[in-house]
């Protein structure tokens, strides 16, 4: 590498900092989060091959088999469907919906936040007032309205999550961009002939990206939990598709009297995935913001 030879030639003192990858690996929580996510995503992709049964095929002869029964490791639900197979399939919708809608929200939120931070006082004031209201607005109303307009389904979830996540991202980007805007390097770039667009793109944005990525990661986790509850309520992914949230509400009926695993295993899966996203986000914070 040319840089290393240059350092040797000019005798620059060695650098003391560890690389980002090394710091990430040292962070046990982050690593755990990443491993869990890789496993979960792998399972979701490979579910059709991994699952022992068709997740929707009910076996009327074998209803509410307990955990550990022969052939059904996690038992069956009230329609005799294999809980394990449904569990393996159940994360697909939630993961795709959460990741896609958070990505969309990150994009919109970053643009809005940057715009708000660098626009004039009046525009920025109005924009952030609206964002503040959206921030506190009960997202359940958005879900209900959307469900009324378009029928309950994944699009309701996506719309709701985007609506709920945009104000979060916008506020974070806005707050950080406001801080960055006041720093002298922006003024310095201006004095060095950079246009406003160049300043935003090459000077300010690199300083915000890490926060956006960190919050985005945590937001995916939060919204996996949230979309599961919406699906449980019947606003999201529709039966008979196997879905963790839906499984919880279906299992509610048999929680006490039948197989408690029907509702509990998907709840644990949701908790684990959400925690994994949180851990990953926290780990990224340490790595990206040294």
């Amino acid at each position, binding site marked *: 590498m040319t840089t290393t030879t240059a350092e040797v030639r000019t*005798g620059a003192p060695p650098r*003391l900092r560890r690389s980002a990858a090394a710091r990430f690996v040292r962070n046990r929580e982050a690593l755990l989060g990443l491993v869990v996510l890789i496993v979960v995503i792998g399972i979701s992709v490979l579910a059709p091959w991994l699952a022992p049964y068709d997740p929707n095929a009910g076996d009327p002869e074998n209803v509410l088999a307990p955990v550990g029964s022969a052939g059904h490791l996690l038992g069956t639900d009230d329609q005799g469907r294999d809980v394990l197979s449904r569990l393996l399939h159940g994360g697909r919708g939630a993961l795709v919906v959460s990741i896609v809608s958070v990505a969309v929200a990150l994009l919109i939120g970053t643009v809005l936040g940057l715009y708000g931070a660098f626009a004039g006082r009046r525009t920025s004031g109005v924009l952030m007032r609206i964002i503040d209201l959206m921030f506190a607005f009960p997202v359940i109303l958005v879900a209900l309205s959307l469900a009324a307009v378009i029928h309950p389904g994944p699009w309701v979830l996506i719309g709701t999550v985007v609506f709920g996540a945009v104000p979060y991202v916008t506020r974070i980007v806005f707050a950080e961009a406001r801080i960055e805007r006041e*720093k*002298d390097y922006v003024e*310095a770039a201006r004095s060095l*002939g950079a246009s406003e667009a160049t300043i935003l793109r090459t000077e300010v944005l690199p300083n915000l990206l890490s926060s956006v990525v960190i919050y985005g990661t945590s937001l995916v986790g939060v919204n996996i939990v949230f979309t599961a509850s919406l699906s449980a309520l019947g606003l999201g992914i529709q039966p008979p598709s196997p879905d963790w949230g839906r499984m919880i509400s279906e299992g509610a009926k048999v929680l006490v009297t039948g197989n408690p695993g029907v509702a509990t295993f998907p709840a644990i899966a949701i908790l684990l995935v959400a925690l994994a996203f949180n851990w990953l986000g926290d780990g990224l914070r340490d790595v990206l913001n040294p």
Partner: protein
Amino acid sequence: MTAVLTVDGLHVDFQLPGAVVHAVRGVDLEVGPGEVLALVGESGSGKSVTAAGILGLLPRNARVTAGSIRFQGTELAGLGERQLNVFRGAGIGMIFQDPVTSLDPSFTIGSQLGDTARLHLRVPRNEALEVSRAWLDRVGIGDPDRVLRSYPHELSGGMRQRVMIALAGLSGPKLLIADEPTTALDATVQKQILDLLLGLAGEAGTAVLLITHDFGVVSHTSTRVAVMREGTIVEIGQTAQILGAPSHPYTRTLIDSVPEIGQRHLQDGQQRRLLGAPAATARVRLSERIEAPRPPADRPILELREVTKEFSIGGLGTGRHRSTVRAVSEVSLSVRRGEIFGLIGESGSGKSTLARLSGALLPLTAGSVTFDGADVGTAGKQGLRDLRRRFQYVFQDAATALNPRIRVGDQIARPLLRLGKATGRREAIELTHRALELVGLNAGYADRYPREFSGGQRQRVGIARAIALEPDLLILDEPTSALDVSTQAAIINLLLDLKDELDLTYLFIGHNLAIIDFVCDRIGVMRQGSLVETFPADELFSTDRQPATRALLDAVLPVRSRRREDLLAPSTIKD
């Protein structure tokens, strides 16, 4: 006479993730009754940690690991909060650096002083208010009744520090610890506050431990001084003796690094450099200079005519009435080619705004700016590009003036390409390396991030970024005020070297008159947005200076005023 405070072999450790930092390692101090002891050192020397350690006010991750702290014979080291509270306030009072954050923003001054009076003097509420009013009067506050009803944010910094002094003095402590009490204040306020502090301490016979980084403050206030470096005391003794003939080389370097008002005359005939730092920088040319016939020196390179800038605040939605604030008001001045023009003023005087207006970083409200004969306001795209290349800035705080996410090499190289100084990537890198070497940095540092540099190195990078473009005019906006004195001296010497080397013109903005006087050829004084007067630096002491200038001059606390007197009898200092 027994000492009020005796510190013996004090050690303080900070527990950081993965490391233990020994911030204070074996400090011995003694403060006698009524004595003023100054503890002086650069940032990170452990002076503030020592002060906080005495009262048990260390941050959560720090603790005293060894040593003893005896206050009037009682051992304080190792005492719990409850036991320490017996001595806090009543025995030892403390004044902190930042009067803005050191008062609770949610309570009135009257409530905060009253609480203290009730706690320490055990008086009922109405009497506590009387005591508070009397103390506000003693600390020189003209309308105590209004101030008692005020919240901290309604008072100026100087007023708040007076309130802090009242708060600490009210309980009648035997020892007052003042941690950089005037660092956050303007120079003209600094002297008033110090004199107030010393006056009150003198009246009550209170011993004072004054923590500072400023040798002017040391010289003005203390009877004895202890010099601290990296957690240990390198030298302690009578102030006059140490300032006059420091025995430790570190102390000497520190004192030599401080520019003294009027010192420029002492060095006449030779190159003007500060002694505290090595002057030698790498002599490298950026590019071959064609010795073009220089334009006549008296032609101004920068000319401001009636420059005015107004900012509007408040308005719809803020709950305040819309109003405009005049930051800069009808300023006219001209900077000649090849000179160093100094612009001095207190915080809020509009000097930095003026600097930004000059380079078209902010739009003017009224007036005009001409750079080398061309109007800056009406410059087209090409004209503005040319202006940007020839007109550069160095900012106060290099920690924020450099983009933390971009390698310093790129931060220097990108503008070179953008402004057409370099035609290709290779040439830009070449120029970047030369610029780094010119400011005394290794070219290999180009691929590092700003956080990998020290404060002084970062300021060097900031200078390299500006001079790589080979500008004609450099605006230096408080380029050294965020730095320690020894680093400051090195940067000032570097700037003076570069000016000779590269034929630069400087507009040097500052608040420290001694530095401005040392560095600049001509001086302009700003006050409340207006330019009060301009004059050659040599005429600073002339009798026809304006009152605003005189006020700045009176506020200077000279380091060596005693030293010169002492030098008359050199035999007494040698040991």
